[in-house]
C-alpha cells in the first residue's frame, strides 16, 4: 500500500510537470541553493561518511576507489 502511495505521488509530481516552466520563470530554480547536487564544500563529509559507514553511492558523487581503511 505504501509503495502504491509513493508511486502515485511520484507520478503525480511528474504529470504535474508536463506544464514546462519557461526559462524566464526559473529565477528561483536557478538559485545556487536549489542545485540538485551536493555542495562543493561537502565533498570531505561525503568522503568520511563513505569511510565510516557501509553505504555509498546514489548521491551523484564518487562511489569507488581508495581503500577507506583508516
Amino acid at each position, binding site marked *: 500500500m505504501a509503495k502504491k502511495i509513493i508511486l502515485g505521488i511520484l507520478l503525480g509530481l511528474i504529470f504535474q510537470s508536463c506544464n514546462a516552466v519557461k526559462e524566464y520563470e526559473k529565477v528561483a530554480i536557478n538559485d545556487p541553493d536549489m542545485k540538485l547536487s551536493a555542495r*562543493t564544500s561537502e565533498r*570531505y563529509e561525503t568522503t568520511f561518511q563513505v569511510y565510516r559507514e557501509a553505504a555509498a553511492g546514489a548521491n551523484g558523487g564518487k562511489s569507488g576507489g581508495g581503500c577507506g581503511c583508516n
Partner: protein
Amino acid sequence: MVVNQVVVVDVINMIKMKKIVIALSLFSGIISSAQEKDSTLVFKKRVLESVEVDFLLSYYNQDGSKSAVSGGIGSEELTDIATNIVVAMPLNDDAVLTVDLGISAYSSASSSNINPYDNGGKPTPWQASSGASQSDQLTSVTANYAHSSDSRNFIWNADVSFSNEYDYNSVGIGGGIAYLFNDKNSEISLKGNAYLDKWNPIYPKELNDYEKYGANSINGTIWDQNGQATINYSPTAFKTISSVNRNSYSASVGFSQVISKKLQFSVFFDVLQQQGLLSTPYHRIYFADKANYYIGQAQYIPNYESESNAGVYKLADDIERLPDSRFKLPIGARLNYYINERFVLRTYYRFYSDNWDIQSHTASIELPIKVSDRFTVFPMYRFYTQTQSKYYAPYETHLSTEKYYTSDADLSTFDANQYGFGVNYTDIFTGAKIWKFGLKNIDFRFNRYQRSDNLEANIATIGFKFVMQ
C-alpha cells in the same frame, strides 16, 4: 528545320537556366545555412565564461573505542587535514577541462597500532604508538573533460583519476552522458566508472613476524591469560594474501525534473560491484575459541578491555577475512523547494542494500537562510542508520571455524546523527582580487557526527572560489 533548331536551342538554354537557378538556390541555401550557423556561433553562450579555481581545506578528527586494527576494541583517534585545488578551464565555447589535485595527511591511533610494540615497552590498544604507520598521506589527481552540444541539451564527459597512499593506489576511468529535454525541465543522465585499485598489504606486526621468522621471533616476553610467560603463541590461521587487487565498477542512472517554478527533484539509481581484496589486511581478529596471548606488562591483562590498560597488547589470531565480491544497490533522491526569497529547503534520502546483508537509510535536511544579498547561513541535520553485515561480530566473539569474519565496527549495526551549520558569502561582482583572480565565493561549514557506538567526529571545511578576470 531552322525552326526546329531554334526550339532545340531554346530548350537547351532553358535547361541551362534551370540548372543555374537550382545551383544558385542550393548555393544560397548553403550560404544561408552557414550564416545561420555562424550567427549561432556568434550568439552561443559559453559553457564556462572564464577559468575558475576552487581552493578547499578541511580538518577532521574522530575518536571512538572500537578500533578494527585492535580487533574491535581500542582507540579510534584520527586526525586528517585535506586540501584540494580544482581548476576549471574553458577550452572553447562548448568544452571544459577540470583538473582536481588533492592531498590529505592523517595521523591515526588505529594505524599506528599495526605495530604497537614500539611504544616504549607499553603497547596498548588505547593509545597511539609512535610507529612509522602512525601517519600517512593520500595524494590524488582527477582530470575531467566535459563537452556540451550547441543546444546545450546534450552533455558528455570523460574522466581519469589516480590516487596513492603508502599501502594503496587506485586508477579510475569513467564517463557519462546527460540529456536535457522538455524545455530543460527534465534531465536524464547515465554514468559509468571503473576503479582498478591495488593493495601493498601491511599485516599486524606479530603476524607478519610469525609468518616470516617463525614462532619465537617476537621480541619480548609473551604472557598467557593468567599472566604466565609462555611460548605457545601460534596463529596458524594466518596466511599472507596473494591476490592484492580490488576492482570497483559502478553504473548510475539519474533523472531530474523541474516540477514548478519553486520545486524540483532528482532520483539516482546506482549499481556497484566490487571484486578482489575487500578486507583490510591489518585489521586484527581475536577468536573466542582460541587462547589469549599478550605482550607488554602482565599486570594490565585483567583490565585489557578498559582504558586503564596502559601497557599490554593482545596478539592477533588472524586478520579480517571477507568475500572477494560485493554487490551494492543504493537509490537516492533529492527534493529542493524555494520557500521564498529568504528560505530554501534542501532534502535528501537514500536507501542502500548490499549482498553482505547490510541495509541502510540516510536522510538529510538543510535550510539555507539568506540573511543579506551576500550572506547565506544554512543549518543542517543528517540521520543515518544501518544493519550489520552478516560477517561482523564484536571483539573476540568470532569462532575460528567461520570462513569470513570482521570486527570492524563500520560494518556493525548503528545509528548516526550529524548536525552543523554553514555560512556562504557570495560576491557576484568579485570585488576582492588576488592577482588576476576575483573572489566570488567563500563557503564554510562545520559538522559534528555522533554514532550510537560512541564514535564521535568533527569536521570543518572552508572553500574559496576565484574567477579569472
